């Protein structure tokens, strides 16, 4: 038998350099499916070793140009734990708004630039804007809202500069938070309309993976507090995370892969969060879900785009609530350096992001470990391809390739994130 290979050389409308390889035999039976990651590794865990703990959040932010805030804040959360720094409630809330602004910006890119062209039959947003100008404008306004909040709190959209150990270099005046609330309220209708439109688009009916993981917290939609839970019963602290999740290397990828130590591949990201934390979604988001007959658990990865829009609706409403609760009192940032190690978990737009650092008594980083969401999703993505391709194997090659690309985009993979590293300090 002489197997043939079907390839997507360079995935488009995803972040970073990756492709797809399918091995098929003469009867078009699928032998193997791989997501090839050829984006070169960037060794971030290695290059932050020997740096001061105050310096590394801005280096680590450069792992990802799409969600730098979650890398910065995840790093700071771990460092603050080591140093025993307790941040004020106002800083906690501003950070949550900061994270949610990345949901708006990053989901905005994914939904409108990367994914929607698939469902409306275009190659890109520019072509899509011809017939769907209103929808595209809604998307651009929502994305701009996210970017505006990110730059308002962080001074710029990409690699913002204000987040430091203990809080922000400069706190915004209360009056500007009121302006933000006005802007957020003005976009609620765009978010609802976009959600409604997308929820009604025909999507493949499909049952994918059944294991999901996300931070969960009884009082809020998991963001930067709580425990990492799966729907099959795990409930882990950040420190316990790597006791149950393992990374492994495969030859076709410069990114490591992940699985639970019981062997299960799992999904992180918007659909996982909606499934696990549905009760903590904002009132508007829950109302919209019931109006649109969206129910959980939802095992269809093609519904991830709907989950992203639900999170956009949620992010706007919750940001308004958080901002309203902030008084803005000036505070000073001071802390002492001490040795230690700690881990943090934060929900990045694409899913759970893990950081762990060990620093010495002079504040120098001795060990770093970072597990991005895309690394965790890769095995699950390949599994989706293995389950999807046999159902469409009779179709022409270009159709199969296209369907596989759409399936990969469900996870909004961020390949630069996934290839940021090698893991240092591991035995």
């Amino acid at each position: 038998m002489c197997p043939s290979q079907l390839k997507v050389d360079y995935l488009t409308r995803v972040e970073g350099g990756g492709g797809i390889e399918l091995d098929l035999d003469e009867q078009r039976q699928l032998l193997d499916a791989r997501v090839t990651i050829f984006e070169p590794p960037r060794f971030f865990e290695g290059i932050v070793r020997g740096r001061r703990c105050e310096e590394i959040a801005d280096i680590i932010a450069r792992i990802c140009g799409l969600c730098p805030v979650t890398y910065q804040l995840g790093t700071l959360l771990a460092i603050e734990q080591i140093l025993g720094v307790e941040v004020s409630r106002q800083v906690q809330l501003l950070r949550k708004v900061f994270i949610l602004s990345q949901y708006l910006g990053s989901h905005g890119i994914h939904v409108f630039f990367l994914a929607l062209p698939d469902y409306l039959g275009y190659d890109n947003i520019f072509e899509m804007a011809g017939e769907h100008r209103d929808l595209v404008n809604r998307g651009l306004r929502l994305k701009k809202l996210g970017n505006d909040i990110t730059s308002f709190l962080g001074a710029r959209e990409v690699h913002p500069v204000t987040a430091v150990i203990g809080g922000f270099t400069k706190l915004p005046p209360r009056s500007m938070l009121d302006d933000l609330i006005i802007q957020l309220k003005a976009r609620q209708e765009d978010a609802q309309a976009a959600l409604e439109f997308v929820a009604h688009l025909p999507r493949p009916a499909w049952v994918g993976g059944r294991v999901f993981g996300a931070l969960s917290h009884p009082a809020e939609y998991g963001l930067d507090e709580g425990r990492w839970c799966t729907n099959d019963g795990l409930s882990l602290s950040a420190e316990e995370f790597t006791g149950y999740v393992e990374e492994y290397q495969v030859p076709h990828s410069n990114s490591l892969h992940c699985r639970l130590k019981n062997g299960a591949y799992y999904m992180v990201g918007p659909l996982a969060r909606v499934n696990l934390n549905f009760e903590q979604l904002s009132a508007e988001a829950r109302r919209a879900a019931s109006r649109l007959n969206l129910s959980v658990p939802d095992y269809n990865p093609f519904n991830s785009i709907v989950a992203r829009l639900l999170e956009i609706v949620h992010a706007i409403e919750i940001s308004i609530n958080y901002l309203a609760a902030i008084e803005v009192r000036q505070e000073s940032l001071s802390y002492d350096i001490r040795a230690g190690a700690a881990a943090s978990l934060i929900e990045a737009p694409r899913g759970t992001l893990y950081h762990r650092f060990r620093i010495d008594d002079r504040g120098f980083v001795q060990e770093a470990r970072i597990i991005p969401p895309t690394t965790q999703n890769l095995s699950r993505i390949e599994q989706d391809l293995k389950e999807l391709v046999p159902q469409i194997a009779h179709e022409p090659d270009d159709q199969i390739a296209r369907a596989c690309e759409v399936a990969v985009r469900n996870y909004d993979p961020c390949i630069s994130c996934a290839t940021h590293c090698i893991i240092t300090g591991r035995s």
Partner: protein
Amino acid sequence: MAVFKFTSCSGCQTPFLNMETEILDLADHVEVACFAMASSATRPGPYDLTFVEGGISCEEDVRRINMVRQESKILVAIGNCAVYGGPQALRNFLDLEDLKRAVYPQPDLVHCFPTCKGIADYVPVDGFLNGCPVDQGHLQDYIVSVLLGKAPEVSTRSVCLECKMKENICLIVAEGVACMGVVTGTGCGALCPSFDRGCYGCFGPSADPNLNSFANLCRELGLTEEEINRKLSYIVNNAKAFREEAERHVPQPVKG
């Protein structure tokens, strides 16, 4: 127009997508012929105007950048990685093979150079837009200049000058912060000092920076030699002026 990514974080192609109010107008004047992150339609070159994000860190990058150069009339390096090699160029000062062996279960599976460098180390480049990330306004100005057939203006002033024009209180004078604005090229609008933080040099060296004088200033402010080295070997670490001054402070073996 084409946009290509090499070894980087995508933070310099994201600004194209962040031109929310301009992007559709821009698309009326510019054909986006190849931009993998934004479009599945990839048209073959030659391209009139090509923006490259990312540094060169492996054989495949070299092959691709030569191909991109061949297909591009105007080739512009955007951002720290394409201009200087980016934050990951910090590995140029470390031993990659040791690191790989110590870490990967199968280090042989990982193929890359011991260095990450800017694209101009490999191909001729027509324009440079600094920043980590590149500034969205600079990208727009560059595109509009090319459309109008005029030479793009790239400022060579320092952050310090821009900061004075914003009437910020000087962090060096008032708070004794070793702010790099005095040796860093402008383009950000003096962001960090405007938010009560010393500049960390993410737009790279200004034209003709006096690094020696900056190092002396750092010493006066109480920084150790090692701290001066780390300050100059940070986000933009592989720009010649920063790198050479950094090496004067903590002598360490440099590879590659």
